[in-house]
């Protein structure tokens, strides 16, 4: 569900980029990217069994 929302947000950013003003496209893109990073941290909580 969360990734479906992200796809829809980026779809809206694309449509805004093609039909609407640049500011709207940029704003939608920024919101969607921030939510993508947040969703990544939600799904990447487990510790990696690695040592460097």
């Amino acid at each position, binding site marked *: *569900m*969360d*990734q*479906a929302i*992200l*796809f*829809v947000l*980026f*779809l809206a*950013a*694309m*449509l805004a*980029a*093609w039909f609407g003003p*640049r500011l709207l*496209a*940029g704003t939608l*893109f920024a919101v*969607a*990217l921030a939510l*993508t*990073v947040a*969703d*990544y941290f939600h*799904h*990447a909580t487990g510790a*990696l*069994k*690695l040592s460097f």
Partner: protein
Amino acid sequence: MTARTAILLNALALYALAVVLLMGFVLQVLWRELPCPLCLLQRVAFVALAVGPILNIRFGPRPSHYAMSLLAALAGFGISLRQVMLHILPGDPGYGTAVLDLHYYSWAAIIFAVAIALIALVLLFERQFETMIAAQRPPAFAVAAVWLMIVITAANAAATLLECGFDVCPDNPVRYEMLQGRQ
């Protein structure tokens, strides 16, 4: 590099992204391999990578549009690298079927790294920013690329909703939640 050449390159980038996303669909539909949450996030990052080129085609090339693509590629690189690290230990079979000896997330990490390098390379050619061609109509080749990406993004949204339903996607999805009972 003129603005017109840059727009053609941006259209080519959209076609390349379309191929990458369609490959994900091939693995998902033909090979019946459902993408995990991190796999879906990598597809989201590929979609995010397409917004900058669409802006370049519509308004003409600008550094800020390339910056948006750089941010998307960095996010995608981080996400795919995380999944590579999850499966890097010897004996780990990885997630999904390997294509040409590499899994989708490994290919994704390589493609995002190449995208970062290519965007930096294209930014070196400053002549593309000197002429404003936003008022001119983009070539049909570029318009088709934009619409192809829009359709593929909508298809990804629908497929993800089918797979995960209205809940958070499981780490190892085995069925389409929205089609449960019909499969």
